[in-house]
């Protein structure tokens, strides 16, 4: 048991922090949020050059053999500047699945260029009716002479509007909600029959609605074994949840800092409002929740690769804390700022919205409380 960072990890986190402070403060996000892509390929390439996209992948796949902790440390810093590049979509979700399940050819073709920041990826799994249930998949992949034909609609695809390559979940057998019969396919972003519609998000970032109108893919585009994708998809989405906790950690810490600085200088009734005990105690509670979130972010990051039951206990616990404790920080940062917090000009609202989006991704608190109580370990003791 050890919570200290290695020297390399400390240096890397410092480098990301410097990047955010100097090259990607919130003003960069503000400038990008109205644009077509919503993020900057040049910044993405820089992140690739720095090794931040490759760090957690095995050396055989062109990575540095790190762990998810490295991803979490990077995301925490990116969150501070609301950096909009598709780290979660490319690295944490689609990239990790290709590395886990892909053939050497698939890794070379689809993963390697992303690690260098030359391409970006997306994972398409959610559908209109699915909510958070990954097996609830109506998109189908039917066998054809050359491979498979994909039909169906995916929603809320992070970076789906810009990705060069999309990993998509489709049913090769069974009916909707069957646990067996799910398969993953690697599809080109510009494949004929793939219709992409950009969907603006509350947080100023974009997702996409993807229509697969009979998209033909070769048999070499099947990722992993046919019909056996569910456990891997669950694994990837749990990484997404751990990543959401990590990115949100940076945003929550920033919200606390902004709020404390503000109540120190804002004067009413002839004195700084931060001298009022009711606000001091609120701020103290916010501090406590930020620290409690931090512990759970670490726990989640440490256990993403543990056995499924242990992993789910950790991830679900962390995700619940993000939406209970984290929400307390969000709502009170706005409350303590007062009216100006609901103006677009203030950064508070931007952080508020981004964290709320992360809370709803990869299973919200209700979903995770329910999943937690359905795990076999819940019948045992808490220890």
């Amino acid at each position, binding site marked *: 048991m050890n919570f200290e960072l290695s020297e390399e990890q400390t240096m890397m986190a410092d480098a990301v922090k410097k990047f955010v402070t100097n090259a990607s403060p919130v003003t960069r996000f503000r400038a990008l949020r109205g644009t077509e892509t919503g993020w900057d390929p040049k910044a993405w390439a820089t992140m690739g050059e720095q090794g931040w996209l490759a760090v957690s992948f095995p050396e055989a796949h062109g990575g540095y053999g790190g762990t998810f902790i490295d991803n979490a440390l990077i995301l925490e810093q990116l969150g501070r500047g609301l950096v909009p590049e598709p780290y979660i979509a490319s690295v944490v979700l689609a990239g990790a699945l290709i590395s886990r399940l892909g053939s050497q050819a698939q890794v070379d073709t689809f993963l390697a260029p992303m690690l260098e920041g030359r391409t970006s990826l997306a994972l398409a799994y959610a559908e209109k009716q699915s909510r958070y249930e990954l097996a609830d998949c109506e998109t189908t992949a039917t066998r054809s002479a050359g491979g498979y034909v994909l039909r169906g609609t995916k929603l809320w695809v992070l970076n789906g509007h810009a990705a060069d390559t999309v990993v998509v979940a489709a049913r090769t057998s069974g009916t909707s909600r069957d646990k067996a019969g799910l398969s993953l396919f690697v599809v080109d972003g510009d494949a004929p029959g793939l219709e992409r519609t950009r969907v603006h998000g509350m947080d100023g970032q974009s997702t996409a609605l993807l229509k697969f109108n009979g998209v033909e893919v070769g048999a070499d585009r099947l990722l992993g074994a046919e019909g056996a994708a569910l456990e891997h998809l669950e694994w990837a989405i749990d990484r997404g949840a751990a990543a959401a906790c990590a990115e949100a950690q940076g945003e929550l810490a920033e919200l606390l800092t902004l709020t404390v600085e503000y109540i120190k200088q804002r004067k009413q009734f002839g004195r700084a409002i931060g001298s009022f005990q009711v606000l001091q105690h609120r701020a*103290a509670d916010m501090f406590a929740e930020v620290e409690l979130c931090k512990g759970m972010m670490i726990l989640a990051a*440490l256990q993403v690769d543990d056995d499924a039951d242990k992993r789910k206990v950790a991830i679900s616990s962390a995700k619940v804390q993000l939406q209970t404790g984290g929400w307390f920080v969000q709502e009170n940062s706005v409350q303590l700022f007062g009216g100006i917090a609901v103006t677009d000009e203030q950064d508070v609202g931007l952080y508020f919205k981004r964290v709320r989006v992360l809370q709803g991704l990869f299973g919200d608190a209700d979903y995770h409380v329910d999943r937690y109580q359905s795990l076999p370990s819940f019948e045992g*003791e808490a220890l």
Partner: protein
Amino acid sequence: MDMSFTPEQNAFRDEVRAWIVKALPENLRHKADNGGHFEHEEILEWHKILAAKGWAAPHWPKEVGGTGWDVAQRHIFGEELIRASAPPLSPFGLTMVGPLIIQFGTDEQKKRFLPRILAGEEIWCQGYSEPNAGSDLASLQLRADKDGDDYILNGQKTWTTYAQYADWIFVLARTNATGKQQEGISFLLADIKNTPGIEVKPFLTTGGTPAFSETWFDNARIPQANRVGPENKGWTMAKALLGHERTSIGGVAETARWLSIIRRIARDTLVGGKPLMEDSAFRRRLAKVEIRYRTVGMANMRTLAAAQLGHAPGPESSILKIAGTELQQEATELAMDALGHNAMGWFDSPTEAMPEYQLWLASNFNYLRAATIYGGSNEIQKNIISKMILGLPQA
């Protein structure tokens, strides 16, 4: 970073678990399996068993009778004690004054006090609060006037937990009435049983037990050699001690025990002919409390791991006190709700009315309302965070 246990640590866990099973005498085992309410003599019996094994104070340095275990081992040991529902030892010597004497005491004080704390030969209590000095502790009035080599104590302490069982008391006393309040306090040790002029009057709590006492000092004479740290530096001593206390006062380990009792109640209690444990609303509620337990537990582990590396617990430990005690209360509230009618019972109810393991729950539920008040009320902890960590301006 790493959360997993090594094969050596897992072997250590097996060793500790096996030893506890063997070492816990039959009379204590019966109580452990039936709610875990222990009388003072029973706690002392277990203290002496642990001391004979050398495991009474795992967190002390090895030179003074600690185990030399690292944080992970101490954590494992703590978990195993909870798993076995072993009697919880009195914290006032082992966790509070002991570490303070180790840190600031003279060699004579270390020699005189530490071995007896360790052995369970001398039990301690705490004399901090006074009737007019609660949250505003620095305004305390117990006077310690110098007379030759002695101090003469006059005044009153209250909330002296289990003082009726104690051999010694550590007190904060006023040695200087001028200047800043915090700078006129000294940290003194008094023989509560044998010093003429000290009188202990226990009073009943809402839990139905005499857990607290008032302690009166009427020209009680104690040697100046029983002062820990320099004169008028008692406030600094108290703050150092609070740091030691706050990591344990959150009661994370006790909450784990409550969660296990709640599960037992939920398995034993029928709702519409089915165990409460199968009720989906109840399961979600239990899941939420348990997730909060994991969250506070993780914060506790981070503090312990930092302590292992030599970082003294700072004001951050206030978080553990606040979140830990709120959680402890939430767990007791859930237990009461799970009990239904049985929550009406009391520790002397007949076992035809309710099973033995449930008898003390209502008492503990009541007693633990004090958790958010003692050890520096949670509101005081928030003052500490806003001043020491957030740097917010004084009112």
